[in-house]
């Protein structure tokens, strides 16, 4: 314990290169000063009353729930996809890899429209879902999860794929010689070694899902308690009461920053 603390202190005395620190600090400022602007302009006086309204709580709860569910969905589908793109011998990998970025580039509203085309009641797939199973996804909480997952999954896939490519494949080989199937090797050897990359991807994915607006409102609509997540609430608030919109955004921020700060280091370092 003492030795680690000691080491930290000593290391800090090493000069950090200005050529790295200067842009880093600039970058940090660039990301954080607008936040400061927001905080400065936020109507602090009326904040508590606005905050503790039932609809804000509901929207916040829904946001966290949907973003987390969407992240789980993305992890379940996206990590294997990243693995396939990084390690599998798939023909046309380069194009596939680029195609995976599609939902990133697509303006989210158009993404929502595309989802409607496919999963809407009259969509390519949705009409059968409706006819055969009576399942209709748009305008439901499940729809929110789907829309968020659609928009956020590329972040996970691309981060994890990048991490996989940087990982040394010889450890997987070593696992194979020990009789581990590719799945076991992936689970027990590869995944732990790229954990930081997976965590980074998960953070991006969750945050993107949490902030998702365009695809959600288009595909899932805006029904309070069912599909009105915080960003949608912010959007409506902007229409009527811009101050309230800022307050809602700040709430969203604080909650997400809190969640991330609490979870992330624990995740990465893992149980010792």
């Amino acid at each position, binding site marked *: 314990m003492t030795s680690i603390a000691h080491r930290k202190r000593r290391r800090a005395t090493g000069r950090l290169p200005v050529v790295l620190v200067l842009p880093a600090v600039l970058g940090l400022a660039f990301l954080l000063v607008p936040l400061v602007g927001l905080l400065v302009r936020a109507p602090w006086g009326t904040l508590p009353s606005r905050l503790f309204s039932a609809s804000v709580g509901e929207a916040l709860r829904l946001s966290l729930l949907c973003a987390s569910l969407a992240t789980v969905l993305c992890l379940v589908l996206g990590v294997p996809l990243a693995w396939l793109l990084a390690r599998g011998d798939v023909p046309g990998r380069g194009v596939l890899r680029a195609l995976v970025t599609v939902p990133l580039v697509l303006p989210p509203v158009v993404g929502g429209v595309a989802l409607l085309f496919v999963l809407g009641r009259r969509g390519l797939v949705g009409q059968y879902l409706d006819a055969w199973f009576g399942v209709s996804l748009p305008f439901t909480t499940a729809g929110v999860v789907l829309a968020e997952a659609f928009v956020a999954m590329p972040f996970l896939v691309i981060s994890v794929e990048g991490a996989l490519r940087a990982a040394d494949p010889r*450890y997987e*080989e070593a696992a194979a*010689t*020990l009789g581990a199937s590719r799945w076991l090797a992936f689970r027990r050897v590869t995944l732990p070694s790229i954990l930081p990359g997976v965590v980074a991807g998960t953070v991006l994915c969750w945050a993107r899902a949490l902030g998702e607006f365009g695809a959600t409102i288009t595909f899932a609509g805006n029904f309070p308690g069912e599909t009105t997540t915080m960003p949608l609430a912010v959007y409506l608030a902007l229409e009527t009461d811009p101050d309230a919109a800022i307050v809602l955004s700040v709430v969203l921020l604080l909650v997400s920053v809190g969640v991330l700060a609490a979870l992330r280091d624990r995740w990465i370092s893992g149980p010792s």
Partner: protein
Amino acid sequence: MTLHADLRVARGVFRLDAELVVEPGEVVAVLGPNGAGKSTALRALAGLLPLTGGHIRLGDEVWDAPPDAFRPAERRPIGVVFQDYLLFAHLSALENVAFGLRARGVPRAVAREEAARWLDRVGLAAHARAKPRTLSGGQAQRVALARALATEPELLLLDEPLAALDAATRLHVRAELGRHLRDYPGHTLLVTHDPLDAMVLADRLVVLEHGEVVQQGTPTEVARRPRTDYVADLVGLNLYRGTARGTSVALDGGGEFTVAAPATGPVHVVFPPTAVSLHPDRPTGSPRNAWRVTVAGIEQHAHTTRVRLDGVPPVLADITTATVADLRLQPGAGLWAAVKATEVHAYPS
């Protein structure tokens, strides 16, 4: 179930073209200079480098036969010690060793117990819970060895498994490994730069140079008739099996040796041909071991002359060319061979 391998692989400009046959229970040592293709051969056998030609067969199972058959590494019953260990960084030493057993479906508790036993055998019981990054080089290598041995595979591929060990540990681990390999029904390939490892542990030597097999045979054969100076230098050892009782060892093939360190039970007795001195008469003085021999053959190498001597036991002696003249050596001549007891090493076999 014999392992037949005709390994043809290309790596960049390097070409490996080597034939290997390993019988069940046999330990084959692969020797050769840096870059000779030893690790490449092991990778091919492990299924980490598909052949471009030739084949690998264990009994009637085809492991690799381009362009059709290829069995991936995880479905070959192998155990590999990699030259750079490749321990899993996020798993403890114990978990590393247990990994192979777990992958083969052994229940967690059993696997961990077995792994603990292996760690103990390589002298690392105290470091079972350490992560690989906190192990010293020699400790890490022993974990790698234990990991490969723990699954009791049909084909063991050991790439310089003792290179990082200190002298004392090496002795201990070599003996432990030797004990294990003696009763082991599988096939073993052992890459090493240490002729002693090779002579003590292996039933047969294969010498690779530039991707090709330049010589192979039992240690005694190779030592008796080295094809090149390189091989002569490398495998210059007299090696016998015998049974020790205190400082005296009765050889299986007849003859007896006095050794410095007492031992009991079956042992290998090893000393280099350079340790053998030749005398026209029975020598006086410190050498404890002296016996009658007759010259069976004389071979001139770069700077020394290797003399093959018949007797009980037969023995190789390296002497200078001047000595050959002095003693007027010629096939059939009778002499006394002498070896100091402190030069004769007995390793439990």
